[in-house]
């Protein structure tokens, strides 16, 4: 019995993913639930678990390939079970079929005969047959097997074919298969790539470096930069937000002196090893509590109706090397400040190192974005669809202010609330913002 390895549908908006790597090789034993391969989505890199236990019998997708969601990319067979019939052409992506056709065209020998001169069954014609020794050398030298001409017994690619291929290349480049595909996809000339260390193989990271700094200035004087899937997602979502929603931004200058003092007192009381709340953590906690009292700010719109979210899940915008991501603190209104702090810190850490899971990036009902640390006072944040509102937080800075009738220096900050006027009107949105302002200026009221 065999089990198909299917690329799981991860969200309704995702059509394809990039296969980053297989965590098992063909022939390896796998346990059900064990991480089997890694995909890159427009949100994060994800480990996908084996759908069944057995032996990884065959894989059809290679690292670096874009693969369609729900495509079958391999087979897991029972240990010691009979070899399964490999008849999966229809389930496979069109790209894979094209690749196979190309392989078949390149390997008339392989396609022609098998052992004893028998015609190979169709599913075997699609595979590249190469000796273990040839595979080993090809992998080490970054030679794609599909480009080789087979000269070995029974139409098999053998070591000399790999050697001949390498010899035929004017400047053989040591490059990993993934890096090679990325470079080809981006139209990079091999000469443009440099290994990290002299003599080392060129890796994906080396290609990324070149892509990042590539200055391809076209005739119109524009520099075109290749982007990762996440950039396109951000672009799509931002435009969708602007086009679909009726966005209005309210701004309020807030006295944050009490907030600053409160945080100082909290930090004084902490023990070693306790999570240290940031202003963002305190704001998430305050906003979450006010969302409970303003359900329309914690809502969505399906074109006909308003959907009020049962949970209050606050997404926090995080600037990563890959781009903007918004990990979600679930049920933020029910969590104590330290628990919330610990959770948000862990999510941010995972977002920064790219290990965050899709579950932690979806399901937000409201978003907070804090540009204060970068030095921004006020801005017009864009709603993170399908949510209703987003709170932009400005920097806390000392400023001249009138306080209790006297001119003095106070800690001040701007809050910028963008909301979707389809769902909530200006006055209730303003009241929501003012409730937040009140808790910042008088934090003790949080118990009311």
């Amino acid at each position, binding site marked *: 019995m065999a089990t198909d390895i299917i690329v799981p549908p991860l969200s309704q908006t995702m059509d394809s993913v990039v296969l980053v790597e297989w965590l098992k090789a063909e022939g390896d034993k796998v346990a059900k639930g064990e991480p089997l391969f890694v995909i890159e989505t427009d949100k994060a890199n994800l480990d996908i678990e084996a759908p069944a236990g057995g032996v990884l019998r065959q894989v059809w997708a290679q690292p670096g390939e874009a693969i369609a969601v729900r495509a079958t990319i391999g087979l897991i067979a029972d240990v010691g079970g009979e070899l399964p019939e490999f008849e999966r052409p229809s389930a496979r992506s069109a790209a894979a079929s094209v690749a196979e056709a190309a392989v078949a065209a390149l390997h008339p020998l392989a396609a022609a005969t098998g052992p004893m001169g028998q015609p190979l069954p169709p599913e075997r014609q699609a595979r590249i047959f190469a000796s*273990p*020794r*040839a595979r*080993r050398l090809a992998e080490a030298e970054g030679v794609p097997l599909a480009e080789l001409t087979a000269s070995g*017994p029974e139409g098999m690619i*053998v*070591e000399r074919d790999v050697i001949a291929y390498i010899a035929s290349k004017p400047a053989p480049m040591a490059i990993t298969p993934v890096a090679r595909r990325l470079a080809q996809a981006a139209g990079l000339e091999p000469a443009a790539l440099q290994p990290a260390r002299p003599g080392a193989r060129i890796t994906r990271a080396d290609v990324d470096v070149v892509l990042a700094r590539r200055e391809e200035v076209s005739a119109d004087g524009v520099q075109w930069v290749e982007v990762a899937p996440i950039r396109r997602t951000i672009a799509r979502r931002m435009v969708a937000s602007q086009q679909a929603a009726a966005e209005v931004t309210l701004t309020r200058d807030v006295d944050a002196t009490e907030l600053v003092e409160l945080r100082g007192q909290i930090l004084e009381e902490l023990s070693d090893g306790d999570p240290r709340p940031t202003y963002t953590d305190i704001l998430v906690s305050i906003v979450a509590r006010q969302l409970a009292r303003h359900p329309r700010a914690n809502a969505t719109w399906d074109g006909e109706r308003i959907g009020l979210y049962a949970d209050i899940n606050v997404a926090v915008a995080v600037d990563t090397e890959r781009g903007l991501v918004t990990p979600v603190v679930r049920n933020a209104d029910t969590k104590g400040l330290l628990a919330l702090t610990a959770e948000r810190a862990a999510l941010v850490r995972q977002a920064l190192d790219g290990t965050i899971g899709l579950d932690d990036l979806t399901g937000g009902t409201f978003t907070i974005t804090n540009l204060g640390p970068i030095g921004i006072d006020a801005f017009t944040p864009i709603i993170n669809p399908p949510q209703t509102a987003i709170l932009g937080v400005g920097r806390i800075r000392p400023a001249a202010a009138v306080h209790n009738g006297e001119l003095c220096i106070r800690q001040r900050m701007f809050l910028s609330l963008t909301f979707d006027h389809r769902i909530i009107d200006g006055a209730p949105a303003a009241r929501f913002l003012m409730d937040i302002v009140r808790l910042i200026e008088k934090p003790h009221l949080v118990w009311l």
Partner: protein
Amino acid sequence: MAEMSIAEALRQAIREEMARDDRVFCIGEDIGIPGGFGGAFTVTLGLSDEFGRDRVLDTPISEIAIAGVAIGAAIAGMRPIADVQYGDFLFCMMDQIANQAAKMRYMSGGQVSVPMVMRAPVGQTRRGAQHAQSLEAFFTHIPGLKVVAPSTAYDAKGLLKSAVRDENPVLVFEHKLLYGSKGPRSERGALSPVGEVPDEEYLVPIGEGVIRREGKDVTIVGKLLTMYRALQAAEILAEEGIEAEVIDPRTLVPLDKELILASVRKTGRLVIAEEDNLTGGWAAEIAAIVADEGFVWLDAPIKRVSAPDVPAPFSPALDDAYMPNEHKIVAAVKSLL
């Protein structure tokens, strides 16, 4: 340094060991009778004159008696060298070898050992299916036995002397077409290689193979007679520019598998030639080891050149069809290129 046949080298080994150690004695059928041949293949010729018939014991035609006396004497502290007239007769002794000699040291926790040597001629010589088998694989399969298979005079002497001094039961398989037996005991079609054997004392350690010919294109593993067939095949292949490496394991248990793996790492191709029947043979074990531990170095399937799964023929007309020879090895190598 003297030029010797394998039979002469074996005889010299026995002579030296008997002179060195009073506990060493020979036992077998027709090995010491005055005016006899010195066993079926002349190995013990003259030894009863030198050491007396108390140390070169002739037995009735009873393999069970030979095995029983040899194993019992070894347990009691002697160093018997048992002569099995034809290896095929080892089957008569099977319980005593497999169940007793091989397991005694293990089952007694090392309190009892069986330092016995059993010399057994193997190989097809057109004397019929019960006098022609290559039995090595049966005994490599039994834990507790050491198995050696010398193919040169130098190795025959050095390995036999090591076997006599070993604390474990050692089976020494000798090929009938390699002895170089003279006179009425000579064999038709024998290869009878002669080699230089040092006059001074030396041992060949059990467990070390040798490369008989170096090459880079294919590894051919052969033992006993097929080692020579492999060398002949290598000569033919060399004329076509194919450089074969020929490995003689010399010892089958314990096997010098690193030597074979290192060679396959170099050549990427492996042919194993042996005279035993194909199925479940020793060649299958070598193929399995390399498939298991040297897979990534293989550039082609592993090929075995063995006898087919039929009894050895008496008819000379069938000999070519039965015997693994240099031409079959050449064909196997070419199928991998």
